C-alpha cells in the first residue's frame, strides 16, 4: 500500500480542476481525532463523528452523479457550459447533506458520488483544511452530544457553540455591522455608513471571488461572545460562518455564479501574538502572529481520496484518507477477487498544500536570543501567496500533533510537532510598496504606556528632556541633538498627488560635518540603534546598487529578483550614511532622487520600477583637509556638490571648540561616563526605551497641521530670511528653506504631541535652522550668512568679486588699445600691478573665462586674442 500511495503523491496527476479538491474533512481532521489529539484539547476528544458530517449546503443531485472528482468539472458545468460550477444548484435553498452519506459512501460503489464528495467542489474548499469538525447545525444526529431534544439547546460536543445561534448571530453581524471610522485600505471605496460586509457580499457577487475576509476586531466589537467562540473553537465556528454567509449570499443574489461557496476568512484575531508567546494553551485556537517568511516548500499534492479500480471487473471504489493513511481494499466487493484493486492516480482527489516557514520579525526579539521559527501549512488557494522574505501576519489555527506512533515501536518520542494551518495571510510590507499607509506596522501601546507618554508630553521641557536623552554619551552639541530629534519625528506627510502636485517630503535630512574624532559616527550609530527601521552604511563601503537595489538570480527559483539596498530598506526609517564625502559621485547621484522625491527609479535587467524610499538621511562627512578650515566655505571644506547639499534641511558643523570651559565640561562628562554606577545606567536605559516608544507613538498617531498663526509666522520668517540677504544683493533663502522650516515646525509640534503647529514650533524651527545656517552657510570672507553657498556652491561675494575682476581686466585690455593678441603672463602681471587686492591665478582665469563667454576674447595656449 505504501508504495502505491507514494507514487500517487509524486505523480503530477492532481485533479484537473485544481481548485476542486479537498474534502470537507481534510488532513488535519484525522489528526485531531486520532491518537494525537493534543491533550490540552480536552474538549474534542471524541468528536470524530462530527468530523465526518458534511453538512455543507449542497447542490442537489446533478453533481452527485459525477462519479469522480476529475470529471465533475465537466459534469458540473453541464448546465451552463461557460461557468464551471452550477450556480443553479447553488441558488436552491441549501440542503444539508445527511451525515451518513460519507461514511458508507466510501466503500460502497453504488452510493458513490455521495453529496459529501461533491460538496467540496461547490465550496468550502478553502476552509476545509482548517476546519476539522463540521459541526452541523441541522444535524441533530451524532454531532450533538447533549440530550438531543430542543434544537436550540444543542451544542457541539466539547464546546459551548450552538450552531443555530451562532449562525444567526453571524448573519446579524454581517447585516448590521457598520464601521464609520474604518481606515483599512481594504474598505476603500465602500460606503462606511452602510453595513460593511453586505457591501463585501455585493462585491463578491460582482467579482466572483468567493472569499470573505472578516476582521475579528469587528466581530469583537459587535458581539464579544461570538468572538470568544470564534477564537476558542475556530474549527466549529468557521464552518458555521460559512454556512451563514452562503445562506445570506444566495438569498440576496440568487443568480450569481460562484466557483465555490463563499469561505469566511477571519483575520486580525486580537489575540495577536508574537511567536515567542505561543504556548500550549493556544493549541487549536485561532491566533494571529506576525513574522517573516523564510522558506516555502514546493507544492505538495495531498491525496484526499484514493480511487481504486478492480483489475478484474473494473469495479471502482474510493477510499478516503484517514489519518494520513489509505486503507487499500483487499477484496473487490463486486467480484470478490482478492488483491485485485489498483490505485488510479489521475482519478484520485488531491488538494494543494504548501509548507511555509516563518520566523519572528527581528523587532519582536529580545536581545541576545535567536529568532524562533514556526511551520505554517497553506492549503489550496493560499498556496504560493507568500514568498520568502515577505513580512506577514498569519491568522490560523495552531496545531500540535504528536510524533507518529510507529507500530513497530513500543515507546514514542514525547514531543509534539506544532504548526499553524493558515486561514489568512496579510502581508505587512505590501503596503510599503504601494505607499498606502503605514498602519500595518503600527505598534500597539498599552494604556499605561500611552499614559506615561502623554504625561511626558505634557511637561513643558519635554523637548529638552528628549534631546538630552538622545545619545547621552555624546557630549553637548545640543542643537545637533535637537536637530536629530526632529529628524526622528519627521514632518507630516502630505499627499497632493490627487491634485497633481505630488508628494511633499516629510523627512528631515541632516548632514553633520566636522573634524574627525568629534563622535559623528557615534551619533549615527546611536540613531541607527534607536529607530526600528534604520540602516547604517559607510560611504566608503557602499556602491550605488548597495544603496538602491540590484537584480540577482535567486539561487532556488532561478528567477531574477530585485534585492533592495539600504535606502529602500530604510523606507519610513532613517538611513545613516557615514563618510558621506568618501562616496563616489556615481553613488551619490542616486541620492538626488531619494532625497527630494523620496522614490528610487530602477531600470535594469528588464525590471523597471519605482520604489518608495521615504527615508530620512543622516549623513556625516569629514572635511577634505582632515581638519575643518574655517577660512573656507562648507562646500569647499567637504567638496560635495551643492545640488546635494541643498537637499539637506540642516547642516551642522561639529567642531572641536578648543576653549577651556568646554574642555572642563567635556572632561567631567567623560570621566563620569567611566564610573557611573549600575543604577544610573539602569535609569538611562529606561530612557532609551521610553524615547523609542515616544517617537513611535508620535510618528504613528500625531500628524500636526499648520495653524493660522503658525502659517503667518512662517511667512514672516521666510520674508525675513529673504530680506537679510537682499540688502547686500544676496539671496539668503529659497523655497526649499521654507519647506524645511515647515517640516521642522511640524516635527517640533509632534514632539509636543500637538495636532496643531503653533507659533512656538515655528520659533524653534527658525532658531534651529538659523543655528545650522550660521554654522554652515556663513561666508568666511564676510561673516554673513549666505544661503547661496549651499545652493549654488559659491557665495554671492565671491561671485561679485569675480565680476569685478572681469570688468577690471576688460578695462585694462581696452586701455591697451588695439592689440589683437597678448601674452597671458603679461596680462596677469599687469592686472596684478593695477589691482589693490591680490589676484590669484584662478581668479584671473575665471575672469578670462567670463570675458570669453561674452565673446570678447579667446584664450589659446599662452596667448589671449581679442575677437571684436
Amino acid at each position, binding site marked *: 500500500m505504501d508504495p502505491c500511495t507514494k507514487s500517487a503523491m509524486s505523480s503530477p496527476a492532481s485533479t484537473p480542476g485544481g481548485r476542486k479538491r479537498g474534502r470537507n474533512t481534510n488532513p488535519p481532521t484525522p489528526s485531531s481525532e486520532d491518537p494525537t489529539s493534543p491533550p490540552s484539547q480536552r474538549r474534542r476528544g471524541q468528536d470524530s463523528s462530527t468530523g465526518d458530517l458534511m453538512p455543507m449546503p449542497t447542490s442537489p443531485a446533478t453533481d452527485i452523479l459525477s462519479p469522480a472528482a476529475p470529471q465533475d468539472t465537466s459534469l458540473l458545468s453541464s448546465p451552463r457550459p461557460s461557468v464551471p460550477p452550477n450556480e443553479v444548484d447553488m441558488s436552491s435553498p441549501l440542503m444539508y447533506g445527511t451525515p451518513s452519506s460519507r461514511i458508507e459512501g466510501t466503500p460502497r460503489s453504488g452510493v458513490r458520488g455521495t453529496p459529501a464528495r461533491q460538496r467540496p467542489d461547490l465550496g468550502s474548499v478553502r476552509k476545509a483544511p482548517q476546519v476539522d469538525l463540521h459541526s452541523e447545525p441541522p444535524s441533530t444526529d451524532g454531532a450533538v452530544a447533549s440530550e438531543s431534544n430542543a434544537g436550540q439547546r444543542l451544542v457541539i460536543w466539547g464546546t459551548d457553540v450552538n450552531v443555530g445561534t451562532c449562525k444567526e448571530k453571524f448573519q446579524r453581524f454581517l447585516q448590521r455591522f457598520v464601521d464609520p471610522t474604518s481606515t483599512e485600505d481594504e474598505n476603500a471605496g465602500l460606503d462606511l455608513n452602510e453595513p460593511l460586509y453586505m457591501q463585501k457580499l455585493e462585491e463578491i457577487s460582482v467579482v466572483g471571488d468567493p472569499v470573505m475576509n472578516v476582521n475579528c476586531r469587528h466581530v469583537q466589537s459587535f458581539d464579544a461572545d461570538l468572538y470568544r467562540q470564534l477564537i476558542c473553537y475556530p474549527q466549529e465556528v468557521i464552518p458555521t460562518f460559512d454556512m451563514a454567509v452562503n445562506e445570506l449570499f444566495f438569498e440576496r443574489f440568487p443568480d450569481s455564479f460562484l466557483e465555490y461557496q463563499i469561505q469566511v476568512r477571519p483575520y486580525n484575531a486580537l489575540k495577536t501574538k508574537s511567536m515567542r508567546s505561543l504556548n500550549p494553551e493556544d493549541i487549536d485556537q485561532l491566533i494571529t502572529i506576525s513574522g517573516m517568511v*523564510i*522558506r516555502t516548500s514546493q507544492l505538495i499534492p495531498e491525496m484526499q481520496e484514493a480511487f481504486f479500480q478492480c483489475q478484474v471487473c473494473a469495479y471502482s471504489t474510493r477510499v478516503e484518507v484517514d489519518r494520513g493513511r489509505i486503507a487499500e481494499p483487499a477484496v473487490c466487493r463486486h467480484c470478490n477477487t482478492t488483491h485485485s484493486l489498483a490505485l488510479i492516480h489521475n482519478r484520485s482527489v488531491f488538494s494543494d498544500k504548501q509548507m511555509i516557514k516563518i520566523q519572528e520579525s527581528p523587532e519582536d526579539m529580545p536581545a541576545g536570543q535567536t529568532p524562533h521559527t514556526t511551520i505554517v501549512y497553506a492549503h489550496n488557494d493560499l498556496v504560493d501567496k507568500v514568498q520568502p522574505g515577505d513580512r506577514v501576519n498569519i491568522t490560523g489555527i495552531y496545531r500540535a500533533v504528536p510524533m507518529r506512533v510507529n507500530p513497530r515501536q*513500543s515507546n514514542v518520542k514525547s514531543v*509534539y510537532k506544532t504548526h499553524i494551518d493558515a486561514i489568512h495571510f496579510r502581508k505587512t510590507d505590501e503596503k510599503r510598496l504601494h505607499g498606502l499607509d503605514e498602519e500595518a506596522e503600527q505598534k500597539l501601546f498599552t494604556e499605561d504606556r500611552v499614559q506615561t507618554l502623554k504625561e511626558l508630553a505634557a511637561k513643558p521641557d519635554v523637548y529638552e528632556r528628549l534631546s538630552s536623552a538622545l545619545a547621552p554619551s555624546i557630549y553637548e552639541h545640543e542643537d545637533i541633538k535637537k536637530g536629530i530629534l526632529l529628524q526622528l519625528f519627521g514632518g507630516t506627510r502630505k499627499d497632493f498627488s490627487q491634485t497633481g502636485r505630488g508628494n511633499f517630503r516629510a523627512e528631515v535630512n541632516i548632514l553633520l560635518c566636522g573634524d574627525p574624532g568629534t563622535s559623528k559616527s557615534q551619533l549615527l550609530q546611536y540613531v541607527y*540603534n534607536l529607530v526600528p527601521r534604520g540602516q547604517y552604511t559607510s560611504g566608503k*563601503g557602499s556602491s550605488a546598487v548597495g544603496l538602491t537595489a540590484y537584480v540577482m538570480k535567486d539561487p532556488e527559483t532561478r528567477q531574477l529578483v530585485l534585492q533592495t539596498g539600504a535606502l529602500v530598506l530604510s523606507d519610513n526609517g532613517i538611513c545613516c550614511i557615514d563618510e558621506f564625502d568618501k562616496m563616489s559621485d556615481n553613488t551619490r547621484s542616486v541620492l538626488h532622487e531619494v532625497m527630494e522625491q523620496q522614490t528610487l527609479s530602477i531600470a535594469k535587467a528588464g525590471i523597471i520600477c519605482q520604489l518608495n524610499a521615504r527615508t530620512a538621511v543622516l549623513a556625516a562627512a569629514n572635511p577634505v583637509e582632515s581638519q575643518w578650515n574655517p577660512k573656507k566655505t562648507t562646500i569647499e571644506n567637504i567638496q560635495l556638490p551643492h545640488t546635494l547639499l541643498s537637499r539637506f534641511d540642516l547642516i551642522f558643523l561639529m567642531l572641536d571648540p578648543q576653549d577651556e570651559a568646554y574642555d572642563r565640561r567635556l*572632561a567631567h562628562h*567623560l570621566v563620569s561616563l567611566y564610573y557611573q554606577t549600575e543604577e544610573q545606567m539602569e535609569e538611562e536605559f529606561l530612557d532609551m526605551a521610553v524615547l523609542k516608544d515616544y517617537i513611535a507613538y508620535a510618528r504613528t498617531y500625531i500628524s500636526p497641521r499648520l495653524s493660522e498663526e503658525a502659517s503667518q509666522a512662517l511667512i514672516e520668517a521666510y520674508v525675513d530670511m529673504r530680506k537679510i540677504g537682499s540688502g547686500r544683493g544676496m539671496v539668503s533663502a529659497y523655497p526649499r528653506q521654507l519647506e524645511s522650516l515647515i517640516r521642522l515646525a511640524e516635527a517640533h509640534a509632534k514632539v509636543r504631541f500637538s495636532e496643531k503647529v503653533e507659533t512656538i514650533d515655528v520659533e524653534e524651527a527658525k532658531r534651529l535652522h538659523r543655528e545650522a545656517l550660521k554654522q554652515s552657510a556663513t561666508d568666511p570672507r564676510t561673516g554673513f550668512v549666505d544661503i547661496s553657498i549651499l545652493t549654488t556652491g559659491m557665495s554671492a561675494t565671491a561671485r561679485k568679486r569675480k565680476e569685478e575682476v572681469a570688468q577690471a581686466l576688460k578695462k585694462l585690455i581696452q586701455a591697451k588699445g588695439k592689440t589683437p593678441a597678448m601674452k597671458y603672463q603679461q596680462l596677469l602681471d599687469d592686472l596684478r600691478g593695477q589691482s589693490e587686492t591680490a589676484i590669484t591665478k584662478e581668479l584671473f582665469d575665471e575672469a578670462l573665462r567670463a570675458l570669453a563667454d561674452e565673446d570678447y576674447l579667446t584664450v589659446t595656449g599662452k596667448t589671449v586674442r581679442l575677437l571684436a
Partner: protein
Amino acid sequence: MPSTHDWINDPLGVVEGMFAASQSNPNSGWEARAVEFFKDRLKEKDAHTLVPSLNDIPMHYLKPNSLVKFRCFIQDMFDPEFYMGVYETVDPATQAKTLRCGKYKDVTECGVDFNSKNTVTAERQTFYCVPIPGENPWVKERYANSSQARVVPSTSYVPSRQKRSYEEDDDMDDMDTQPQKQREAHAGPQSPTEHHGNGDCKRQETEAPSSQTTSASHLDLNFPLPGEKGPSCLVKVYEDWDSFKLNDMLEVYGILSVSPALSALADEKDASSSLLDPTECMETAEEQRVHCPPASLVPRLHMLYAKQLQHNNPLLPSAATSEDNSAFLASTLSEMPSVREELLAYLTHVLLGDALAAEYLILHLISNVYVRRDVLPLGKFTLNMSGCPTVASYTERLYQIIQQLVPSSHYLGMSLQNMNQMRLVPKKDYVANRLVSGALQLAKNTSLYLDETQLEQGQLDTTGVRNVTALGNLISWQKVDYDFNYHQMEFPCNINVLIASEGRSLLPSDCQIHLQTQVAPSHLEEYLSTMHMLSQASSQLNKFRIYLSVARLLDYSISDEVTKSVEDDFVDMRKDDPQSISAEDLHRMLVVARLLSLSQGQTSLSRDSWLRAKHIEALRRSRMEQHKCVNGNEP
C-alpha cells in the same frame, strides 16, 4: 531521603518519586521542589565535584539517565517544543491506567493513551550547546583533575549490543555502527584504549571522547572554531529559558539521555510509512539531521539546574555565590602587586625585553567590557602590537604563551586565504534551520589573537571584505552582526582582540604599541629557543592565571577628588597643545588608568595611578612619533 548515590545515578527516580507523591495533593508544586532538591544537593560541600562531567569523561562511561554536568556554550537556540508533561499509559494486559511524568525524558513509556484527559502538554526549549570555544588545554585538564566523580564504565554498555537487544532496530543499527567503524579507522591506535579502558584510566583521558569528534564528516557539530573537539549536546531547558542568551557560558546539571530510540525515530524517517505524514515529509533531511542527530553522537541533556559562568578559570572558585567570590578576591588582592611584577618580568622577557609593551599587554589581558553606554562599549582595550619580528614564527610563539595564561583564546592568522575563505560571522542556514557558527561566535573574555604578519599581497574578495568589516566592527563596537539572510542581527560580545602586525594594523584598535626589541635580530632565533625553555613551573603559571582572571572581576570606582584632578589635567593638557590631545585620547587614558589600577589590585583610581597612566601613555606616544619619523611611510 535518597542517598548521594541515588540522586546522581538515578535522578529520574527522585523526580518520579516526587511526582508520585504529588498525586495525592495536587498543589504541591512538586516541579519546583524537585529542582530545589537538586540545587540543595549540589550546594553541599564539593557535591558538584561528584557529578561526572561530559567535558572530560567519554560518553560511554556515563550511565544513561544519570546526573551529569556539562560546561558549555550556547551556540544556537532551537524552537520551543511541546511535550507530554503528564500522560497516561494503559497496560495492555490489565487495562490498568497509570499516570506518568514526561518531564526530563525524551521518550514515553509503552502504551500511551493519547486520548486521555489527564494528559498535560508542557513546553520546553532546546539549546544546542558546544564546549566553550577556544578553551585552552590547561583549563580542561584542570577541570578534569578536580572532578571526584567515580565513573565505572557501565557494565551494560557495549554500544552495539545494547541496541541489538531491540530486535526491531536492526536497520538502524547498521546505520549507526557504520560510522563507528569509520571512526575507529580514523582514531587509529587511540581507539583500542577507549574501547577496552576501564574506569581507572579516566584520569589519563583528559580529552573529551575523541570518538565523537572524528566523525565530524558524518555530522557537522557546528563548532564555532575549526579543529575543536568535544561533545555537543542538546540541552532541554524546562524553565526560565528567557534568561539565557546566545553565547552564554553555562555549567549545566542535567539528566543524560542517550536513548537509542531517539535515533531510531530519526532514521526511520526514511521508512515509507512516514511519507504520508505531512509533518515529517516536509522537514528537510538537513533539518532532521541537525535537530535530531543520533543520540550517540549528540546526547540530550535535560537540565535540572544551570549556572551562568562568569569565567571558565578552574583555579578560581566557580562564582556560584558572590560572597564566596569576594572573600577569595580579598585574599588575592594583597598579592596582586607582587604577582604583577613577576608577570611583567616574564612578559618583558617574552616580548624581547620591551617592558612598556609588556605593561600594555597586561592591561590588554585584563580588559573587559564592563558596561555599555548606549552604543559605546566601555572598558575594551584592543591592542595593536606592531613591529613584531617576522622571523622564527615569533607571533605564533607569542600566542602559545598567551594560551598558557588565559582560559580561552583563539589564534586567527590573517592570511589572505583565511580571510577569503573562513566564515567569521555566524549565518543562519534556513534549510537546516540552524545558526551556522563562525569564528567570531565566542564566549566572553575570549582572547582573539589576530596575526597580521601572515598577511600577504593579494586581493580580498567579497567574503574577505565582509570578514575584515566584521573584525572592524567587533573591535570598534564589540558586536557582531549575525547574518540572518533577510536581515542582520546584532549580538553584543566581549572579546579581547590582540593584533600582532609588522606595521600599523589595517584594523582599527584602541591602542597601538610598537615593539622595541632589545634583542638583535641575529640572536633572535637563539633567544626564542631559550625562551621556550623558560616555560614556567606550574605554580607560577597558576599564579599568573589567577591574577589575570581576578583583575578582571574587580570592581572599580573613581572618587570625586580624583575626578577633579583628572579634569584639571585634561584642561591643562589641552591648553598646552590642543591638537595633541582630543576627547578620544582622554577616553583611552581613562581606560588605561582603570586597567592600571586594577592590575595593581586597586579598586579605585589613585592620583599615582593616574599619573602613571599619563606617563606610560606619553612614553607610548613618543615611541610612535619616533617610529613615524623613522619610517615616513607610516600613515
